[in-house]
C-alpha cells in the first residue's frame, strides 16, 4: 500500500497529520539543517521527544529532514542534528549532502536513510550511486520527471521511490537552483530558504500593488488581481516588449487523479509538501489524501477522484489552481 508522508512544521500540525491518517510525518530542526528554515517553525531537543512519542503511540512513523548542504563552519551542527535524531529514535533520516549521508551510514547504520529531493537524483544510475555508497533505502524524486520517466525509473531503481503528490510546485530541479541566492543571498541548499520572507517587501503604488525581493520588482498587481508570495520563479518579468510569467504561473501540484497510475508503476510513497503551512492545511490535505488512498485500495479498478476532494484541496492551494506539473507535461 502506498505510504502517505505528511508535513509538520510544529506540534499541532504533527498531531493533525497523525490523527488524520498520515503513515509518516516529516519534520525538521529549528535551524538551517533543513530545507524549511522559517521563523517560528520546526522542532528542538525539548519538544521533539514528545512529538516522536505522540506519533509512535499512534503507529505513525517520524522522518527527520536534514537536507541542506553544510559548509565548513556549519558541518558539526549537521553532524549533531544527525546524532540527535538518531538518539531520539526517529524512524528515518532524509538527507541530501554526500558527507552527511556518509556520516549517518557509518555512525548510525541502524537508522533508515532516504535521499532527499534536494539530492536531485533523476536517473537510476544516480540512485545506484547513493544506494551503493550510503545504503539509502528510498529516494524522493525531484518534480521535474514525467509519469513515464518515473515509471521507467521505478523499473530500474535499486531503491524505493517517493514522489510529491500535493503542494507548492518547484519547477527547477530541486537542489540545483540558485535563483534565490542570486537575488537574496539565501538559497535552499545553503540556508534552507527560497525567496526568504525577510527579503520580501509589499508596496501600494500608483501602478498597483508591488512585491519586491531584496528590492527587485517581482510582480505588480492591478486592483482585484490575486497577489501571490513573491517566489522568484513565479514573478512577471520582461523579455523584449512582453511582460509575462517568464518561468512559471503560480499554481500548486496535485496528483490525486493519477494515484492509480503511481501505484501501478510501483511508487512506494506520496509526499505532501508544506511544512511551512498551518496545522489546518496539514489537517485538510492529510484527510483528503487518506480518503483518496483508502478509496482507491477498496476498489482499485473503479477509482475516480471525488469532487469534494478537489474542492477541499483547492481551498488550500497556492493561486487556487492545481496542476499535474511535470507528471503530465502540458508544455512538453
Amino acid at each position: 500500500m502506498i505510504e502517505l508522508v505528511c508535513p509538520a512544521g510544529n506540534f499541532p500540525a504533527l498531531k493533525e497529520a497523525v490523527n488524520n491518517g498520515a503513515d509518516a510525518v516529516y519534520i525538521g530542526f529549528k535551524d538551517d539543517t533543513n530545507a524549511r528554515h522559517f521563523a517560528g517553525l520546526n522542532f528542538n531537543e525539548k519538544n521533539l521527544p514528545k512529538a516522536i512519542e505522540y506519533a509512535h503511540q499512534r503507529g505513525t512513523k517520524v522522518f527527520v529532514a536534514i537536507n541542506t548542504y553544510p559548509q565548513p563552519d556549519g558541518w558539526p551542527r549537521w553532524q549533531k542534528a544527525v546524532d540527535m535524531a538518531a538518539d531520539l529514535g526517529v524512524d528515518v533520516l532524509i538527507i541530501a549532502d554526500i558527507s552527511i549521508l556518509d556520516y549517518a551510514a557509518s555512525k548510525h547504520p541502524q537508522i533508515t536513510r532516504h535521499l532527499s529531493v534536494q539530492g536531485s537524483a533523476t536517473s537510476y544510475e544516480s540512485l545506484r550511486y547513493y544506494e551503493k555508497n550510503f545504503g539509502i533505502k528510498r529516494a524522493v524524486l525531484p518534480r521535474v520527471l514525467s509519469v513515464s520517466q518515473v515509471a521507467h525509473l521505478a523499473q530500474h531503481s535499486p531503491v524505493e521511490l517517493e514522489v510529491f503528490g500535493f503542494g507548492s510546485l518547484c519547477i527547477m530541479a530541486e537542489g540545483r537552483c540558485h535563483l534565490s541566492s542570486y537575488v537574496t543571498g539565501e538559497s535552499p541548499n545553503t540556508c534552507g530558504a527560497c525567496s526568504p520572507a525577510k527579503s520580501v517587501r509589499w508596496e501600494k503604488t500608483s501602478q498597483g500593488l508591488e512585491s519586491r525581493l531584496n528590492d527587485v520588482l517581482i510582480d505588480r498587481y492591478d486592483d482585484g488581481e490575486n497577489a501571490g508570495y513573491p517566489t522568484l520563479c513565479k514573478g512577471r518579468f520582461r523579455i523584449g516588449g512582453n511582460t509575462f510569467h517568464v518561468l512559471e504561473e503560480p499554481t500548486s501540484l496535485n496528483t490525486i487523479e493519477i494515484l492509480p497510475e503511481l501505484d501501478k508503476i510501483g511508487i512506494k510513497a506520496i509526499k505532501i509538501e508544506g511544512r511551512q503551512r498551518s496545522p489546518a492545511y496539514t489537517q485538510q490535505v492529510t484527510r483528503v489524501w487518506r480518503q483518496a488512498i483508502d478509496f482507491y485500495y477498496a476498489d482499485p479498478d473503479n477509482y475516480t477522484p471525488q469532487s469534494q476532494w478537489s474542492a477541499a484541496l483547492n481551498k488550500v492551494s497556492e493561486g487556487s489552481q492545481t496542476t499535474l506539473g511535470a507528471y503530465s507535461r502540458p508544455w512538453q
Partner: protein
Amino acid sequence: MKLSLGPLLYFWSLDDIESFYQSMLDTPVDILYLGETVCSKRRSLGFEQWMELAASLRDSKPVKGQPKEIVLSTLSLIEAESELKTLRRYCDNGDFLVEANDMAAVQLLSEKKIPFSIGPTINVYNAQTLAVMQKQGLQRWVMPVELSRHTLSGILNDMDEMGIKDKIETEIFSYGHMPLALSARCFTARAHNLPKDQCDLKCIDYPDGLQVKSQEDQSLFTLNGIQTLSGLRYDLYNELEEMQSMGVDIVRISPRSRQTKEIINAYYQKINKLEDKAAYTIAENCNGYWHGEPGMLQSSL
C-alpha cells in the same frame, strides 16, 4: 594558476563551434572543456564529432604555450534513457578526462574506477564530501557558483588537514553568466509559445542566451533552454590575486560569442602580472557570491 574555458553553454552551429575552438588555440588558455551540458536536443555535434574535435585540438600545436588539455564535459540534468546511453559513451571514451555534471556520471565513472572531475552543478559544499569522492576517483572539482571565498577558504583548509588538498585540483567559475538553475521545462520555447517537443531549436537564435528583465528593466536572468543563468556576468578579475594566494588551481572562463579572447588575455595578463595593455572594466558585472552577498551585487570589499 591555470586558465580554463568552461563548456559552451549555448547552442551554436557546427561552423561557429569549430571556428570558435580553432581560434582558442591562439590564446593562453590551458584547458578546454568540450561537449553539450544543457540540452540533449542540441546536436550540432554528435559524440563522434566532439571526439574528433577533442583529438584535433589536443594534437594541434598552439601558436604559443603548451598544448591544450582537453576535458569532455557532460549533460547536467539526466532524465531519459537515451541521455544515459550517450553519457555512457563519454564516460567510456578511454582517452580524455570526463567532467561529471550529474550524479549519474559520477556513478558511471566511479563504478569503473575511471578518474573524473566534477562541474559546478554537482553539490559539493564541504571538504568532507570531497574526501568521500576522492576515494571514488575525483581529481578536480569546480566550486558551486553560490559559494563564497570564506567557504572556499574553509574547504581548502579542511582539505589540507585531511591530506587531500594535493590530490584534488580546485577550479573556480570566474567569468561569465552563471548557471543558476536547471528545469525539465524549456523557457526559451515557452518565451516563443512553443511546446518543448516542438521547440524549433529556438536556442540557436540566442548565441548568448535570452535576456530577462524586471518590469523596471533591471537585468535579472538569462534564459538558455532548460537552464537559467544570471542576468549579469560574474567577474572575479579583481579577485584573481586573492585566489592565487588561497591556492586555487584553475580559473574558469565561460565562453561567449563575443570578447572571449579578450577576457582570456586580460585574465592571463593579470594572473601572470604582465603589463595591462587595455584598461579592464568590470562596471556592468557582478561578484556578490564571492564576497558572501547576493550573487547579483557588485561588491568592492
